């Protein structure tokens, strides 16, 4: 199934990633990490097929564990990224909404 087009996709996505991510300020490096981590939990897509396809019990069970792990990252990763980003406020806004 390995095709040349996949290598094109990989290299181009890598370039896009490089140019976008070099511009992320150091301020947001932790949210960046948790965000990319949540996004790469897209391996959930592969896990779902493995857990749900007619491929034998072992494949289904391994798929189930994989789905669980990936879902932890999807759910936890997006929530925690949002929680962090919510905290970053400019001076003019930080004052108003203190606890």
């Amino acid at each position, binding site marked *: 199934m390995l095709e040349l087009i996949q290598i094109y996709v990989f290299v181009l996505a*890598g370039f896009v990633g490089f140019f976008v991510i070099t511009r992320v300020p150091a301020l947001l490096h932790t949210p960046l990490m948790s965000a990319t981590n949540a996004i790469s939990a897209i391996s959930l897509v592969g896990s779902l097929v493995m857990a749900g396809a007619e491929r034998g019990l072992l494949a289904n069970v391994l798929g189930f564990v994989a789905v669980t792990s990936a879902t932890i990252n999807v759910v936890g990763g997006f929530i925690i990224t949002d929680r962090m980003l919510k905290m970053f406020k400019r001076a003019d806004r930080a004052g108003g909404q203190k606890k």
Partner: protein
Amino acid sequence: MSPRTLFIEAAYLAASILFILGLRSLTIPDKARRGMQLAALGMLLAIVGTLVHHEVVHYGWILAGLALGSAIGYPLGVYVPMTAMPQRIAISHMFGAVAATLVGVAEYWHLGNGAEVGRGTMAALGFEVLFGALTITGSFMAFGKLQELLPSRPLTFPGQNVVSIAMFAAALGLFCWLVYDPGAHPAAFYGMVALGLAFGISLVLPIGGADMPVVISLLNSYAGLASSATGFAIGNNVLIIAGALDGASGFILSIIMSRAMNRSFTNVLFGAFGSAPPPSAKTAQGLTVRSITPEDAAIQLAFARLVIVVPGYGMAVAQAQHQVRELAQLIEKNGGTVLYAIHPVAGRMPGHMNVLLAEADIPYDKLKEMDEINDEFQNADVALVIGANDVVNPAARNDRSSPIYGMPILDVDRAKHVIVLKRSMNPGFAGIENELFYAENSSMLFGDAKASLAKLVHEVKQQS
């Protein structure tokens, strides 16, 4: 192309675009939140798209996995405190790698233990399980060190690097054999997975706590590459794209982190920095430190026009960020300005200090990167160093024999007064003496950072 395939591919394409837009939004702090919500929507689209895949017939395992994953992931997202973020990120790399590795193993097994696998796919599967396996154990070790289940100092034994390299070489050998002959004995494949797991342990154990920012970034990159390899193996473009984005991000971060420590990857991974105290470094003999009382420190702070706070790992350990904010508000009320100087490797992961200070409601436009703030130190009346050590050590600038010579530092010593909050005179990581503590314009305020700051807050209140 059937309508179903068209729908799935459209969902994947939309997800890819939303992921890139989401990451792009992180370049602008005010738009980041909305952008990441779009990325989450992309994820949802991709999941829905996959659920209608023609091969998916049993929903039992899927629903169970989604439910269990959500039940574990939700508290990990909502309740983990910001101070625990480095270990939280490390463990999430492990979960990502577990998913990628298991899909690889299941795929190999399902394809007749390699009998029906082509060479290209075998190469992808090999990459997937090898990177996945070493990321699983490597991230778990990093988690253990950050959570202090394991000692955070480098754990080494004689010949460690030889053992590590031998394991990696053996895994690589099996990989080449499998690519040459995908139908080779399955033991080769599973042996490669086992070697990957063992290599991950021996790779991270000898790395000390202060090097964690590089390690976490590198593991981030590996987890991404493993996802990408999954995409190659099962022929799924959205996986390739998302994995490449993650891989690029982790790679860039590790370069930034190593550069900020003036060290190479190889040095971080195989150097076991700090296992022996460097003999040539300057010692403290014949030098004295001035300690300062909270009262005197408070007077300096209360009348300062510009105070630059330099936070380090010590602030994170003491969880003193809220006291920092309280003190800053008092100084600002007195008419002073407070800025924060953030060194790229302060703390245990990229951006660690920014997250903690933002949590304490400190506006992000006051958090300054090293290059931006270094010229300001000469105008500062007081530089307040809270639990930072190596990142403010002038030896990096002027002592050629120092192991950290050449590392970019914050020029704290150029401020008119430097007040250092520190637990004791124990030298920091790697036992390097810090001449800043003995400088004319420095004084030390000993004690737990949180307690010291609380005293300062109290005393500054008395002043105003």
